[in-house]
């Protein structure tokens, strides 16, 4: 089957675009999603008060009649010339599928930049994780309530995680990214403490804890573009687009936090994706 539009990523941006496509009457639309469910990388926080708009979008999209391939990941593609379709390679639970499509919208989102990206000195103990990982673990029933947890409050995601995990963590201490830097990680097998430094007074303080939820900034989840001509920012891996989502490759667009126009808190994905979708749908 050949599609008019293939949307890579059924997260907030991808679903926004899919809803627009449906409203405009487009029929042959495919969504490809790495996760087992739609909702994207903010899925875990979506039931919290910080993500009410996204929650609404998700329930609206539940009834979309388009095919959604879940647990499926794009591993690469060949771009078509002139009128020939693009060819996508998708790894599914059972095979590597080939998909022909006229247009591609990359809406593959962004992942949280972990401790390792920030050259924070110290040991490499267990217990240091991103808010998203903590939420995923908790959803699987793993317990995070033993000992004290420090949450580094950097953006909307850490706030969402803090709210979601509120009664699943033991004692917690919230450290605002505006006031403190994480300076050193103590512990060999298990986290024992974190040294934080006040950006205001310059004073350092060790806080003993057995878990640290940390992330700051984001990486475009665009790994499948490695070696492909779609231009990306070297340090954030975000796709470079114009304001209508055009990537420089004909009929390949990108929207949401996987682009350089997105923001770390994923706050503008809906608006951006709507604008890109309008522009794109006008062409199809």
């Amino acid at each position, binding site marked *: 089957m050949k599609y008019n539009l293939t949307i890579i990523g059924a997260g907030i941006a991808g679903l926004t675009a899919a809803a627009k496509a449906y409203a405009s009457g487009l029929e042959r639309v495919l969504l490809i999603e790495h996760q087992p469910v739609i909702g994207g990388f903010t899925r875990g926080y979506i039931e919290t008060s910080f993500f009410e708009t996204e929650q609404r979008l998700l329930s609206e999209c539940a009834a979309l009649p388009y095919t959604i391939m879940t647990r499926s990941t794009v591993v690469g593609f060949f771009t078509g010339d002139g009128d020939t379709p693009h060819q996508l390679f998708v790894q599914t639970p059972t095979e590597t599928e080939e998909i022909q499509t006229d247009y591609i919208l990359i809406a593959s989102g962004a992942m949280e930049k972990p401790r390792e990206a920030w050259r924070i*000195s110290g040991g490499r103990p267990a217990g240091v994780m991103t808010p998203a990982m903590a939420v995923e673990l908790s959803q*699987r029933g*793993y317990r995070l309530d033993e000992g004290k947890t420090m949450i580094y409050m950097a953006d909307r995601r850490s706030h969402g995680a803090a709210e979601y995990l509120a009664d699943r963590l033991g004692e917690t201490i919230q450290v605002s990214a505006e006031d403190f830097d994480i300076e050193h990680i103590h512990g060999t097998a298990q986290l024992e403490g974190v040294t934080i430094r006040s950006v205001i007074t310059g004073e350092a303080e060790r806080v003993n804890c057995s878990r640290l939820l940390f992330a700051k900034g984001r990486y475009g989840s665009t790994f499948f573009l490695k070696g492909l001509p779609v231009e990306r920012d070297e340090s954030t891996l975000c796709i470079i687009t114009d304001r209508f989502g055009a990537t420089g490759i004909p009929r390949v667009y990108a929207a949401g936090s996987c682009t350089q126009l997105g923001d770390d808190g994923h706050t503008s994905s809906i608006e951006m994706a709507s604008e890109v979708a309008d522009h794109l749908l006008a062409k199809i």
Partner: protein
Amino acid sequence: MFKVKLMIHKEAAQGSLPERLLCYGDKAKTFRRLLHYVGAVTPIHCLMIDKTKLSFIIKKQTKTIKCNIKQNQWNGKVNIVVDSLRDVVVIGGGVVGTAIVRALSLYNMSIMLVEKQHDVCEGTSKANSAIIHTGFDAKPGSVESDCLRRSRELWPELIGALKIPFLPCGAVMVAASETEKAKIIEHYVPNAEANGVEVRYIEKEELLEMNPDVSEHNLGGLVIEGEGICDPFWVTRAFAQLAELNGAEIRFGSGVERIEPADDDSHLVIVLEDGSEIRTRYAVNAAGLWSDEIADMVKDESFVITPRKGQFILTEDTLGISQIVLPVPSPSSKGILAAPVVFGGFLLGPTAEDQEDKWDRSTTDDGMEAVLNGVEKLLPGIRSATTIRQFAGLRAVCSTGDFVISPSPRSHRLIHAAGIRSTGLSSSPGIAERVVELLRSTDLIMTERSEAILELPDLLGESDAASNGEIICLCRSITRGEIERALSAPLSSTTLDGIKRRTGAMLGECQGNGCIPKLLDVMESFTASRGLAKAGGEEAPLKGLRESYIAGQAGGRDNEI
């Protein structure tokens, strides 16, 4: 070669197997090898041996065994004598211990390796410069130089047989001043000659041509063509896997707590931390930083080990060097160097900092600064490189100043392979050879195993897309199938670091934060479906080291009530 798939009868798989099976009678030789697998490795590994079929039943009480080789059209009975006394137990699963157990697995003996952590290569062997040294700078006449010399001859074959990723890039020791040049000509050239290592002094032009990023203030350098780079984890894992395929038993999560010589001196009793006992004729102490503690268990205080930290920076930037670039060493360390990495990128470091804690491998801002400072002298532009990872390793500095490869003065049944400071990776095959020689001079009967496996088969090999399953690690495109293959191959480990080092999953930008929950799902269903134990029998998932819990056991506390 005769290949057999072992089908273990339900009864046998459930009951505990005798520790060692000796067989006599018709076809005994073939059976001895087959049964060795049964006695020595877990049933799941036996199932992988392949192709044709052998089924057998072990009646636990009577200790008789009935064997049935279908393919060979042979039916017969074999008498079994159960003997739970091992010939050799190797303590420590670093590169030294695994090299030894590989070498011993080529003999008809019952051998075992016990490692405290839940995988091989969790100690010094995992964090080092990854250089296979020639020993050009080793002290002539030392045990170290002898081990390095032997290893030089052994590596080419090992690299091929174990498919070790290896980069024969050579090294260059740069002369930054006339004094350093004089030191190279007057000390290092004759020293290399005494050790039988070929070296060659090159002038500035050649130095810069091969390594354009090197400072042009240097006068020239000493090229040591024979030095190269490998993947230390690969080496350690491959040594252990080969040993396991040859029937050695490898036990993780088995820290040695006490060693008790038998009253009649006929054997040693090794007591593990969980209280279980292993009886063995000989033991080899390859416990790295902790080898003095093992010696202490037989009241041997002939050497003391202290840790010396080395911090590293790994960069993925492209540097203009084609060789390992070394400074002229100072008295306390080989100095801070820059070297290519087998899988791409460059390694900068290490520092040399004495400390007390034997597990503290933390990095510090001062250490990172020291690395950059050191490398800057060789490669002036280095500060503009972006780092991707930082880590540290601990050298085992020995009070005797040389390797200790000899029977303990307090117990001839404990052989030390200890005090291995800065070249243990390079010298491990030679160390193993010396240990084999020491054991051959004892009362052990060591006949060569005629059907020994010398080459590592492709255990994690590629397979078709259908059996790959969905992508689990997004950053590195690692599939469910690749993870399951790593879990089912010999020497599997059920810690996340174990999976990481076998598959490359979790090594991308998200450093596992995105895929660890999914990986836990895969491991969960895999271990449950195969009835396998989790690392250390722990229900809570482990990152790597013992007690490195990722999170509490799923639903844990409620279940206890």
